[in-house]
């Protein structure tokens, strides 16, 4: 047998099938070739089994920390039709059935990541042994790609761990760590990582101990394995799925359908259903978009010269407000013991409160120990002086949004740090290029724009300026990945990338309100589009004063197409600032929950509300975003459509199932977008809806944003 992907050895009548030996990437996945080699190996094992040459089979990985990260997503992505995809699933199922049907004992010896097709393979073995490595995690994340586990995962997992556990894992894609996997019966035993391969052969030839699982487990089985309770379990699961997916994601519902309809069916009949469902789902627009997003995200995590770049070990924060405190939290949580500086004790305590609040939920849910909380919080040094800044590798400035103040701060800061310390500004609206002029050496300076709240929003915009060095930008990129953020590098310009594209969306909402469309209708239209919250609700979150300021900056920087609606100004005049003072478009209680509409706002709006077709309403909101994104490409804020989509999804929660703003635009078609822009330009505003030249060009040449 000529093997280039897997290894196959027999020792003491035990067959060893090894993954990952020839894998160059950090994660081993099952490629088409690997699947074929696996088929050959399992066939060979079958032959030798018949000759009574083998006592058992062990599947393991040569790569520490990775068993199998699943089937290569490229393979799923290459399936061109439902039938082809279903056939692909059937082939995998057939192979895994062969493993299951071996009469000699089989075991998967799992150290590290074991996901998707990797876990499905493990499930087809008699037993799974997991290492005590903290990296060991098992899961079926297919739902996140808009599909379902198609190699028998939905068939075998419920048998192993019971219906409720299986539903939870398959519907959410949640990964379970070794200990939890052992508790739910997914793995036979937890073994010491270094010795597991020595120990398993002896364990393998012993019969599987009968599972008692205690009274609780028996009760659970009795409860979930009868017709009536199953029906209730599925009903509850369906309700939860609809609540969480808002009906935008077909996969979870399909999964429930397969599991429910498959009850009591034999293996072959069940698996045929599973393969069919996999085929169907794999070709949905949602799945294609989620796969697209997977590739974008995966690619964004790669940095070729990572090893050559300096590593940030210690952080510093200037300004201990909501953002400063949040950034201090990020440093502290990543063990980069920050120094947080502000002018006085009261300000510092605000920052500490923010950081402490960010840890609170992890502490409450016991995902963090009291000791770790103490250690991490106490790793933040609150100070009013620059003493100690020599120890710092990266400073993020988050003081008041005022160019003169920031310039002064940077001019002073530069004299207080080492020459190789990176200096960044968390400005959301000021020119990074102008700010750079305050520094003697601006090559180590860049914008570093976080989104609020820092602990929840994955995106970080790294803003370049003409004097910034490549090393600075790349080191910041590497750091952002290290602290588990999603970075995008963008060029300087009003609002950078995300806020610039978001601004016309919020601005247009104000124009719609002025025209008499209700707050509820506007927000609902956005929600139905898939946004996590409507524009009015979002303006409250951002702060109406901030919206007013940003609106002005956009108008100044971008001209008539960004003509700011005066509504946010009028609102701030009434004292409504949004969530920060519990009064914006909506009224909020102390916990930030919406308790009603703000009557003072309604008084400012037309008394007679008019209704508008929802699709029309959505186009009014989202078209100007696409148009501005086109300008961002022309103005070289970013160099490709993918960056816009990453930014909008991770920075604003733009619906992932739409693949991002420009993926959505490409799906709709530039010609259609252009036609509507022209129509709105004629009917509503020739300035705000003037089509971007790039959009016109794409429409005329019948090209897509992703073709650029």
């Amino acid at each position, binding site marked *: 047998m000529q093997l280039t992907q897997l290894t196959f050895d027999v020792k003491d009548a035990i067959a060893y099938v090894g993954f990952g030996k020839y894998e160059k990437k950090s994660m081993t996945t099952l490629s088409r070739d690997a699947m074929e080699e696996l088929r050959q190996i399992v066939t060979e094992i079958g032959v030798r089994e018949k000759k009574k040459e083998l006592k058992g089979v062990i599947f393991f990985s040569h790569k520490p920390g990775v068993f199998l990260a699943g089937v290569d997503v490229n393979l799923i992505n290459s399936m061109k039709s439902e039938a082809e995809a279903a056939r692909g699933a059937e082939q995998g199922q057939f192979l895994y059935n062969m493993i299951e049907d071996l009469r000699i004992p089989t075991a998967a010896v799992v150290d590290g990541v074991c996901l998707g097709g990797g876990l499905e393979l493990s499930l087809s073995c008699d037993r799974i042994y997991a290492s005590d490595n903290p990296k060991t995690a098992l899961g079926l994340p297919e739902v996140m790609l808009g599909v379902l586990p198609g190699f028998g995962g939905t068939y075998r997992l419920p048998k192993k761990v019971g219906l409720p556990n299986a539903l939870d894992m398959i519907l959410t894609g949640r990964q379970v760590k070794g200990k939890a996997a052992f508790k739910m019966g997914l793995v036979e035993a937890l073994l010491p990582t270094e010795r597991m391969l020595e120990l398993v052969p002896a364990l393998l030839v012993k019969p599987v101990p009968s599972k008692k699982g205690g009274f609780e487990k028996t009760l659970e089985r009795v409860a979930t394995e009868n017709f009536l309770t199953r029906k209730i379990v599925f009903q509850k699961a369906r309700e939860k799925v609809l609540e969480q997916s808002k009906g935008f994601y077909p996969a979870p519902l399909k999964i429930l359908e397969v599991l429910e309809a498959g009850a009591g069916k034999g293996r072959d009949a069940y698996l045929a259903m599973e393969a069919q469902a996999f085929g169907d789902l794999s070709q949905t627009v949602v799945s294609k978009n989620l796969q697209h997003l997977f590739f974008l995200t995966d690619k964004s995590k790669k940095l070729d010269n990572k090893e050559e770049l300096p590593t940030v070990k210690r952080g510093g924060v200037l300004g201990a407000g909501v953002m400063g405190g949040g950034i201090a939290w990020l440093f502290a949580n990543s063990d980069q*013991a920050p120094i947080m500086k502000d002018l006085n004790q009261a300000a510092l*305590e605000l920052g500490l409160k923010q950081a402490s609040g960010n840890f609170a939920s992890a502490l409450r849910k016991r995902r963090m120990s009291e000791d770790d909380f103490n250690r991490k919080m*106490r790793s933040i*040094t*609150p100070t009013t002086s620059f003493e*100690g*800044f*020599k*120890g710092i590798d990266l400073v993020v400035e988050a003081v008041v949004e005022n160019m003169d103040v920031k310039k002064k701060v940077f001019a002073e800061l530069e004299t207080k740090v080492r020459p190789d310390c990176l200096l960044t500004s968390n400005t959301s609206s000021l020119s990074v290029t102008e700010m750079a002029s305050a520094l003697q050496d601006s090559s180590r300076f860049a914008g570093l724009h976080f989104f609020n709240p820092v602990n929840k929003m994955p995106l970080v915009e790294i803003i370049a300026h003409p004097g910034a060095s490549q090393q600075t930008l790349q080191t910041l990129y590497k750091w952002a990945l290290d602290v588990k953020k999603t970075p995008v590098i963008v060029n300087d310009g009003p609002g950078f990338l995300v806020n610039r594209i978001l601004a016309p969306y919020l601005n247009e909402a104000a124009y719609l309100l002025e025209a008499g469309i209700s707050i509820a209708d506007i927000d609902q239209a956005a929600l139905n589009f898939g946004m996590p919250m409507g524009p009015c609700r979002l303006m409250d979150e951002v702060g109406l004063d901030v919206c007013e300021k940003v609106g002005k900056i956009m108008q100044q920087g971008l001209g008539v197409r960004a003509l700011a609606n005066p509504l946010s100004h009028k609102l701030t005049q009434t004292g409504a600032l949004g969530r920060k003072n519990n009064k914006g478009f909506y009224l909020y209680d102390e916990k930030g929950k919406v308790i009603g509409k703000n009557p003072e706002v309604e008084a400012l709006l037309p008394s007679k509300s008019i209704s508008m077709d929802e699709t029309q309403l959505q186009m009014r909101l989202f078209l100007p975003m696409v148009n501005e994104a086109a300008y961002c490409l022309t103005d070289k804020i970013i160099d490709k459509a993918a960056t816009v989509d990453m930014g909008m999804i991770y920075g604003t929660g733009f619906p992932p199932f739409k693949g991002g703003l420009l993926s959505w635009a490409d799906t709709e078609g530039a010609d259609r977008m252009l036609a509507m822009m022209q129509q709105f330009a004629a009917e509503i505003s020739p300035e705000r809806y003037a089509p971007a030249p790039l959009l016109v060009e794409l429409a005329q040449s019948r090209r897509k944003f992703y073709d650029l």
Partner: protein
Amino acid sequence: MKPVYLVEGKRTPQVKSGADLQDVAAPYLAHYLIRHLADKHGIPSDAVDEVIIGNTGTPAKYPNVGRVIALEAGLDKKTSGYTVHRNCAAGMEALSQGFIKIASGRSDIIFAGGAESMSQMPLLFSKKMTALFVDLMKAKSGMQKLALLSHFRPDYLKPIIAIEQGLTDPFCGLNMGLTAEKLARELGISRQEQDEFANRSHQRAVAAQKEGRFAEEILAITMGAKLDKVLAEDVGPRANSTVEGLGKMKPYFEKGTGTVTVGNACPITDGGSVWLMCSEEAVKKYNLKPMARMVDYHFHGLEPERMGLGPVLATAGVLKRTGLTLDQMDLVELNEAFAAQVIACQRVMKDKTLAAKWGLEDAIGEISADKLNVNGGGIALGHPVGSTGSRLVVTLAHELRRRKKKYGLATLCIGGGQGGATIIENLQN
């Protein structure tokens, strides 16, 4: 001997136990001071030879708190760290060990100091209760356990207060307060004198706070249940303190007839302090500007029941060793464990007959009030036992620098019958 430099010393604010800092475990009363000093002076985390921390409470969770502090401070894992215990002078003991190691050329960079959370000193189970627990754990059957439990008596639960035991001398059986009473009695120190001294400690500390004289030596600490509060000043000095007010307090240790009250004694306190100590080579390598040079130190024993006079003998010892005189000391920090004990030291130091009684050839000299504890002392600022020995040197060095003076003496009495003294020379004029 090679010269030993005290590059910079910092301390926490000091707070009476059971108050603002009660939730701060001992390691966190020093780790941030080290991190700050390393950052400020550009000392790489892997360049430190040793961390030496004085601590007397020995928290059950951190038996070697010095090593824990080294790790929590973010120093390289290869940095050795240990804890020293010489009762009230544990912090000075840490400095003395740093001194020897650098002076002998063995080490170049050492963090030395002390950390004490007296709030977190434990309550212990009685011997009988502990024995019962042990037997219960050994018992195999439920019946055996029941039988054992029947031996239980409620008085088994009476706790032993570790701190109370720790403050009682096991050799002479006297509580520390009673050793002060003994000195007051034998040397004729009146209640009025003690209260006046205590009051002056508060007045001086309050004045120092008002003028921001502690600002450079204190590094603000994070506190509170949610760790979202900052404390930057000592909690203890009372602006409204009066001799009359102090005079109304009842004697605490010798009820009825005594003179030592909680008002003219130091309170039980939480706090920490750390020095960055360096050799000449390290000073050059990292381009440091040390605050001071540690000239020498001395420890000396005496009868435990008169432990309060320890500073007399320790001072005599360090002066003899260095060839300096008490007159040459521009400032003196003599720890105020008890007002009576400080006054006693002053008396014995200047009186030839008394000095001879404790084996000295001659009187050492007089410490005038304008040199002694100029920013108040332990009575107002508190006495976190493991830290005070180095805290005195921190305060002393900062005040010498402010006054542009040369020599300073830090000395303190040590429970168990010892005294410790350190002389430093200010290098920043």
